């Protein structure tokens, strides 16, 4: 069973940490479509956080299409069918890239260094290319 790790006192709210880690695990292949995820209650009790927080994280993941809930069975990793429009996804990617570029430039890295680091990070995410290319 997959449990994300949460830390308190971080810049990111707990629900965001849960969303990000599950997303990363799905994208990185640690979680495969059909894998079951802990119930809201079980995860809340395991992480010692408010169940509403986990419910909110699952809701966001469901909206993004990463997980799906099956009535009476639990929560599972979904087959990746994008739920956002191409334009929206494009917009979000631009925002993320902008943020990365600003941060990295502010830290004084050259564009080559940045590209390398990005490639390294993406290298760990096997099979990401095809799924992204489909639409």
């Amino acid at each position, binding site marked *: 069973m997959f449990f994300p790790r*949460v830390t*308190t*006192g*971080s*810049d*990111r*709210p*707990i*629900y965001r940490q849960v969303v990000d880690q599950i997303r990363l695990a799905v994208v990185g292949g640690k979680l495969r479509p059909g894998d079951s995820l802990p119930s809201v*209650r079980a995860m*809340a*009790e395991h*992480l*010692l*956080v*408010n*169940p*509403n*927080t986990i419910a*909110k994280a699952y809701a966001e993941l469901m909206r993004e299409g990463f997980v799906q809930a099956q009535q009476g069975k639990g929560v599972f990793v979904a087959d990746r069918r994008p739920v956002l429009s191409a334009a929206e996804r494009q917009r979000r990617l631009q925002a993320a890239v902008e943020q990365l570029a*600003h941060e990295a430039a502010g830290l004084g890295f050259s564009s080559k260094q940045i590209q390398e680091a990005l490639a390294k990070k993406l290298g760990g995410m096997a099979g990401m290319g095809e799924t992204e290319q489909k639409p």
Partner: protein
Amino acid sequence: MSEAVIQFENLTHWYGKHCAVDQVSLAVPRGSVFALLGRNGSGKSTMIRALLGLQKPTRGRSRVFGEDSMDLAPQTRGRIGYLAEGHPLFGWMKVGEAERFERSFYDSWNERMFAAVVEHFRIGRKQRGKDLSRGQRAGLALALTLASEPEVLVLDDPAMGLDPVARQDFLESIVLTTRDSGRTVFFSSHILADVERVADHVAILDQGVLRVCCPMEVFRQKVRRVVATFKEGVPAGKLPDIPGLLYAVRCADELSLVAVERSGQKEAIWALGPAAVTEEPISLDEAVIAYLGEHGVRTSLLEKIGGGQ
């Protein structure tokens, strides 16, 4: 979720010439875990005591389940679990006696819950309340409160004086109670890590005045850091009024502001003529401290000492 279980209406309390709580109005929705934050003496305990009808407010009122706190019917009281500050117990009672004493007042009593919590805190049945450690006392008090299965749990600074292990045990017990989604928890605390974990609503009381009362994520989203970078150093002199500013720290060519999202704020910052303005999220600790600390441009104690050298 929308129904308010606890309501404060213009609650005001004066102690002598000191106004401890100043016209606070807030509502706690059913099923929420509501954290009341504030410094020592900011009026949190006063609010909780007023909520339970233990103290008559100078003005205003509070309600639980729609009933005025000062006239709570005994049955309504039975639906409210209350853990007072410092986890008071009748110290001479043995754990078993305390359970028997407490359960005689309630129609239903969750023995399994009581046994589980007591065991979790490694408390022996034959021990007397006054011989327990601080954490165990808290555990026993909590077990006695939880076993009556209250619909609302009111905790006055439950983590006070507990070591990290006891706090962890305590936190687990609180999460346990929220299994029942209809159960509401209203608590005051200093331990922001706990608050971050369990609370979904947050209210901040600053010297008796309510400054924040909203869902946790709204708070996290609205309060953030804005960093303005300047080419030729931060302009000297007094900062102009920036809407929503909590505090600002000047560095050589950077002005770092912690501020609440407000219209007109960006414009006010750009008016200072920075080269770039970026926004970053901040941790809950930082946000809460920004509220409870001194507002405006801040120099820390360390800086003050450093400047004197």
